[in-house]
């Protein structure tokens, strides 16, 4: 029942998503506004395009909306609802966050802001027979509040043990592997939305800021930093876009890693171009920088995914021909 949405409708959706998330005072209001705009239905009918559009807007606005919960739940075939959240893998990893040990489950992972109000949690658990996913009473997963680097507190780390009997089987049949691939592509779009925002800020600053009697945009060192950022963003964006027509998990992994790398490069260059003002708490730059650092670690990072891919290639002894004309 997946359908394709045409470009004009997508552009309209993108701007209404951006406006809704930019206006919302906090993550739960942003989630509510997205649901009011039909986000859950969009995800059900056009998951690839829907997530790409929403996550680009998420990155561009710097919103802490908990849309990743919906994307992962939908990919696992679980219910998407405002009262429902997911546990995400521990930073830099993509393994299911739960591990069954006897009659307890060790949960080591991340929760989004949605977890504070959710009633049920979807938890992926590594068991002897593979990875399964279960519904768990959200109250069981309350850990200590942690601030972390991100002032928007989009995600926090939890390490808790819960009794195995708290796992309620679900009827849904999505695989953990495909949920990982789906999450990675969505997060790639978020990273790229954020990177484009950072590049836009730095570009405008370079044009507006004059030193030595001219805009700093006239200095080649500045121009090349911004050019390098754009090239990495476009390269990564092309791969993230290709994932829409190609569900290959390796391509999704590459999209996430490339987007993380593009965001890292852009953040470094934008920081340097913004200089003193960009180092202040007053300038908005640091919100995007810190969110980028957090999102980069989700479901594998630009540091960890290349290891994962390289190990896979080494065990195969050859590289697959990805991307067909």
């Amino acid at each position, binding site marked *: 029942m997946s359908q394709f949405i045409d470009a004009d409708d997508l552009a309209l959706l993108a701007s209404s998503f951006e406006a809704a998330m930019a206006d919302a005072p906090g993550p739960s209001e942003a989630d509510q506004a997205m649901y009011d705009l039909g986000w859950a239905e969009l995800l059900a009918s056009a998951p690839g395009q829907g997530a790409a559009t929403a996550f680009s807007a998420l990155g561009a606005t710097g919103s802490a909306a908990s849309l990743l919960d919906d994307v992962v739940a939908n990919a696992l075939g679980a219910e998407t609802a405002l009262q429902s959240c997911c546990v995400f893998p521990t930073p830099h990893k993509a393994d299911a966050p739960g591990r069954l040990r006897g009659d307890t489950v060790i949960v080591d992972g991340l929760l989004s802001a949605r977890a504070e109000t959710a009633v049920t949690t979807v938890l992926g658990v590594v068991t002897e027979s593979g990875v399964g996913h279960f519904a768990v009473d959200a109250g069981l997963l309350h850990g200590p509040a942690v601030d972390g680097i991100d002032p928007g507190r989009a995600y926090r780390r939890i390490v808790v043990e819960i009794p195995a009997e708290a796992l309620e089987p679900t009827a849904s049949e999505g695989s953990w592997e495909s949920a990982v691939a789906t999450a990675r592509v969505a997060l790639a779009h978020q990273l790229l939305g954020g990177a484009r925002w950072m590049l836009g800020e730095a570009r405008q600053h370079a044009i507006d800021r004059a030193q030595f009697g001219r805009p700093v945009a006239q200095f080649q060192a500045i121009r090349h930093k911004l*050019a390098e950022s754009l090239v990495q963003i476009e390269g990564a964006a092309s791969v993230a876009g290709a994932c829409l027509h190609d569900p290959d998990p390796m391509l999704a992994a590459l999209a996430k890693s490339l987007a993380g790398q593009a965001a890292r490069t852009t953040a470094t260059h934008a920081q340097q171009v913004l200089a003193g003002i960009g180092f202040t708490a007053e300038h908005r730059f640091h919100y995007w920088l810190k969110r980028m650092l957090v999102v980069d670690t989700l479901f594998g990072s630009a540091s960890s995914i290349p290891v994962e891919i390289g190990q896979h290639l080494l065990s195969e002894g050859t590289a697959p021909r990805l991307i067909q004309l």
Partner: protein
Amino acid sequence: MDPETFRRDLGAWLDDNANDLTPPYEGIGSMDAHMAHYSHVKRALFDSGFGRYGWPESVGGLGGSPLLRAIIGEEINFRDLADPNAWTMIEVLAPTVIDFAPPELSARLVPPFLRGDEMWCQGFSEPDAGSDLASLSCRAAETDGGWVVNGQKIWTSFIEYSQRCVLLVRTGQPESAHRGITALLVDIDSPGISYSPIETMHGRRDFAEVHFDDVFVPSDRLLGEVNGGWRVAMDILPYERSTTFWHRGALLHRRFSDLVAQVSAAGNRGDAAAKALGQAFQWIVAFRSRSRDTQHQLAAGEQLGVETSVDKILITSAEQQLFETARDLLPGVMEFDDDLAAALWRNDYLYSKAATIYGGTAEIQRNIVARRLLDLGPES
């Protein structure tokens, strides 16, 4: 013909004719051997019909999408059947000549080029005009029935093997910059042309220094308009960065796969090696994905422009990263070994250093991205 059927039929034909199409030399081979085999493969492809797809019927082609040409080079490079650098000349020069030459001229001259019976070269750079191409000074003066060319070119690849050259000459005042440049299609055997090969640092005679001493070029060899040569040169750039890049991307992909096989066979399964490979691979794939988008724009008849500088930066970065990774993960091999595989790694490593120089340097590409894609205004 639809691209997938074409790829399948071509693949079957290449496999059936593998004996005939595989290079007779092992490893790197001499430049002469490369060029001879390149012509042989081109001719076989042309005569089988495959090599005529994607080119207009007016120049001996069978029509169809330029995607078909992208596919040929991809399959040839994945199988390592012919020299990819020689191949670039046709993809770089033929489309522009078809766009700008009088139709009778291209109908006569382009078919032997497509069939590999001829080689052409590109005479743009001069000793004092590298990145600043618009400052070139090789002059053409109007004379009865044509032009008389005097001056010098340098780094002209493949001229030793070429019959013709797309030449940029100054026809306006010396200070006329890009407004006073004209493009001519010149026969290399014209009296007054002499050249001396220059050996590259990877030990090949890839290019040469060329002198023009009262060389007569008939007026029907004009490409585009008088003083309109800059347009011709600018038309070439997007071609240089579409089909040929797809071909080269296939070569890089194959070499990457070779590297994975060698590292894997050597038993190096550490995370550091894995990470370096993963990082090299991701940029090869990023380039390939970007280039795929570009191939489809070209096939849809869109005018390619400055955004192909992004493709250029991506492929050159991917290429250099790949061969630096090879140097790291095959420790000492390219420095100290002399077997075929080592010689190839050494060759490709050294040649990768040219990637950020030819076809517009890395810095010039970043200038273009900053000015035209980021709209940062003029430089100081």
